């Protein structure tokens, strides 16, 4: 037990230093970016907003101070739990992340479970039938997926299932023109199917190919040879001697894939006009909304870090060999 605590303690330290480094780097990058947030905000009203008004906006946003001072002010309020106010939305960043993340969360969980499950099953199937036609099809499918950009896949699905077949809505999280009290669970599900499926594609190839390789290794090991000699075969053999061994890389990989999930969500949400964190991130980046972008960066760092931490913890628990190794 003490080992787990020291493990967590080290991780927390690492997280804090990571967060600090990430926010400093992000801030430096944004303040050197060629985007002028005021210009981006004014946009087409350029001709009607005079220099005096620009000055007022800059002052309101705190852009007149030197970057170091801006960062310090932002940092000290973050330590007190206040992520600041978004420049373009004029709402507290915490409130915005909360609202948008709830939308994204459902999407990401479904996609994540789907891709893990599909990937794992495909990987097993491929390894069991190594070098036969199912293996070749699955491998080919995985290579294609791995080489396919999410947004392209999303557009394809959108064209086929929403525009031509009209099975699913073209986007958004709720049906158009329906009051919240009349939105059914079925409505919500039909809206989430396409984006979740698009997003799940990101993880499938990874999990499937790794699981396949691991299972092939396992199947050629001596203990399998021994089990076979005892007359075990097919699914029983896999269940008794394979699953636990091959699930480890799949789980680790899949939890560590949180970052790809996050990146994929940005694109999938963009294609399906889905109101999650992805859209907010794109807006914040393109328009130089410093507080919002920093808030999102910190949040996504936490998210990805949590994924990696879970992966570590689970392998720690599942794999007895890791427990026995004493930390230095």
């Amino acid at each position, binding site marked *: 037990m003490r080992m787990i605590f020291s493990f967590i303690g080290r991780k927390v330290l690492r997280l804090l230093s990571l967060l600090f480094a990430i926010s400093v780097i992000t801030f430096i990058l944004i303040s050197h970016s*060629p985007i*002028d947030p005021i*210009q981006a*905000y*004014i946009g*087409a*009203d*350029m*001709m*009607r*907003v*005079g*220099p*005096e*008004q*620009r000055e*007022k*906006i800059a*002052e*309101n946003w705190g852009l007149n101070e030197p970057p170091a001072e801006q960062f310090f002010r932002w940092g000290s309020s973050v330590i007190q739990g206040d992520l600041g106010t978004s420049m*373009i*939305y*004029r709402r507290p960043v915490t409130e915005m992340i909360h*609202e*948008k993340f709830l*939308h994204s969360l459902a999407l990401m969980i479904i996609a994540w479970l789907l891709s893990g499950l599909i990937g794992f099953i495909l990987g097993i199937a491929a390894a069991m039938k190594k070098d036969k036609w199912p293996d*070749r*099809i699955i491998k*080919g499918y995985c290579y*294609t997926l791995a080489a396919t950009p999410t947004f392209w896949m999303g557009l394809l699905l*959108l*064209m*086929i299932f*929403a*525009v*031509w*077949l*009209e099975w699913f*809505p*073209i*986007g*958004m*999280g*709720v049906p*158009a*023109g329906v*009051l*919240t009290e009349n939105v059914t669970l079925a409505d919500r599900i039909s809206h989430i199917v396409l984006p979740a499926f698009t997003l799940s594609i990101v993880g499938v190839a990874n999990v499937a190919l790794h699981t396949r390789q691991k299972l092939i290794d396992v199947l050629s090991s001596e203990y399998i040879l021994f089990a076979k000699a005892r007359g075990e075969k097919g699914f029983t053999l896999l269940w008794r001697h394979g699953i636990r061994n091959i699930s480890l890389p799949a789980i680790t990989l899949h939890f560590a894939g949180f970052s790809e999930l996050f990146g994929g969500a940005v694109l999938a949400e963009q*294609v*399906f*006009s889905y*109101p*999650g964190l992805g*859209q*907010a991130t794109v*807006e914040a980046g393109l328009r130089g909304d410093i507080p919002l972008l920093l808030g999102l960066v910190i949040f996504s760092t936490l998210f990805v870090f949590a994924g990696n931490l879970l992966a570590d913890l689970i392998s720690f628990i599942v794999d007895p060999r890791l427990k026995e190794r004493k930390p230095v």
Partner: protein
Amino acid sequence: MKKFIIVFSVIILLIFTGCSNGGNGESKNHADTTRDELILAVGNEPETGFDPALGWGQYGSPLFQSTLLKRDHDLNVTYDAAKGYEVSENGKVWTVKLRDDVMFSDGKPLRAEDVQFTYETALTSDSVLDLNILEKVVVKDPVTVEFHLYEANSTFLHSLLTLGIIPKHSYGDQYAENPIGSGPYKLVQWDKGQQIIIETNPNYYGKKPFFKRITFLFLNEDAAFAAAKAGQLDMAYIPASFSKNEVPGMVLESIQSVDNRGIMFPYVPSGEKTDDGKDIGNDVTADIAIRKAINVAIDREALVDGILEGYGTPGYSAADGLPWFNEETKFEDGDVNAAKEILAKADWKDENGDGVLEKEGLKAAFTLLYPANDVTRQSLAIAVADMVKPLGITIKVEGKSWDEIENLMHSNAVMMGWGSHDPIEIYNLFSSKMAGMDYYNSGFYSNPKVDEYLEKALLSKNEQEANEYWKKAQWDGKTGLSSKGDAPWAWLVNIDHLYLVNEKLNIGEQRIQPHGHGWPITDNLVDWKWDEK
């Protein structure tokens, strides 16, 4: 592996052909004209919500609020919540009389205090609304309000036309999400990042809209087009590149705009620098013969047909078709011979036979910059360069980011775009007082006579008088800021705004739209109805 590829492509092919057969059925939505609901996708979500003090309603109708004045479809000024206004002798005090029967959607009356509160809030909101000219707002009696300006400015009218009135009693942090106002509609639901649903406001004093409930989806142009194809919309805003695709049950409406594109020429010879070290002026474009010749040689119709797919109009000024546009400034273009004559008269000759004109050792060559991410501007720039080549003028076309252009725009020609329903734009683009201030008059144009007209236009007490001066500034018979006069710009085209509209929906008479595609179409929402037939 090869086998797999073949199998896979056959499957994909089957899916595709199968689908194109399946998708032709017209959606039930379109045929039904008994419903009094519409679903539109015409613009982006206003990030700061529906608070006029933060910029809501500057384009199109504010929907939930009413303004003091409004423009009809010919862009004439009429009254909305006001019943009259007067400007004092010195132009600094505007007195507005309010209607006494205007009610907010919560049943309380609209009074002068609300107007005062609206303008004071907008003034201090640090938003896109620039009301810095306003000194104070004085309530005279419940239905009379006075606006005191620091200096006379006839374009203050634009604020009266666009700023929706906020109720003082219900304004707070949540207002942008729950707007209460005296407009034709009230907000029922806002699903952030997705849509708003609005319904008619029973307390509205004006013409009752035909459609009781309207849903606005916040989709980008691609998604809006996809939704239209799937038969889920009554109206979608689309870019010109989609205009060739037919959508069953919908027709393409092309609406004229002042969303213009033109070439800004540096007006003065080189040599000077701005305070922050940017070069000013260009010796070639400082020669009026070069600017005039380019203006005359460009075939604007060809640009509209070739680059805008025909969805546009030839551009002659920053304000084509608006009440302050001077019709006399239109001219015959596409005339290469006339252009050559202008150049020959000004002693531009090709002495060394390299196809480029010279004058006193100066080659007729300059750089034209355009924002690199804008395909339309790029195409326009290249087309213009081709059109003036036979004259012996070489235009080097270069795409840059706006940040680079900002540093180079005082010494190089730039492909710019403007177009506003506020005549202050003319002042900002051409007054010598605005030379070098941000993007205003970046070519350092100046003409004392034009300046005089521009100042007079600002000082005018009503729009008619102001418009006379705006027109004179463009061309008074002898000089002006138009291509007939000093030709500091070569205006090229006005880009039409395109919408896919349900073929049975009648969207009334549309006015000329400003720069900004989308929301302006809601200006006459109350007039929309189903076609009778």
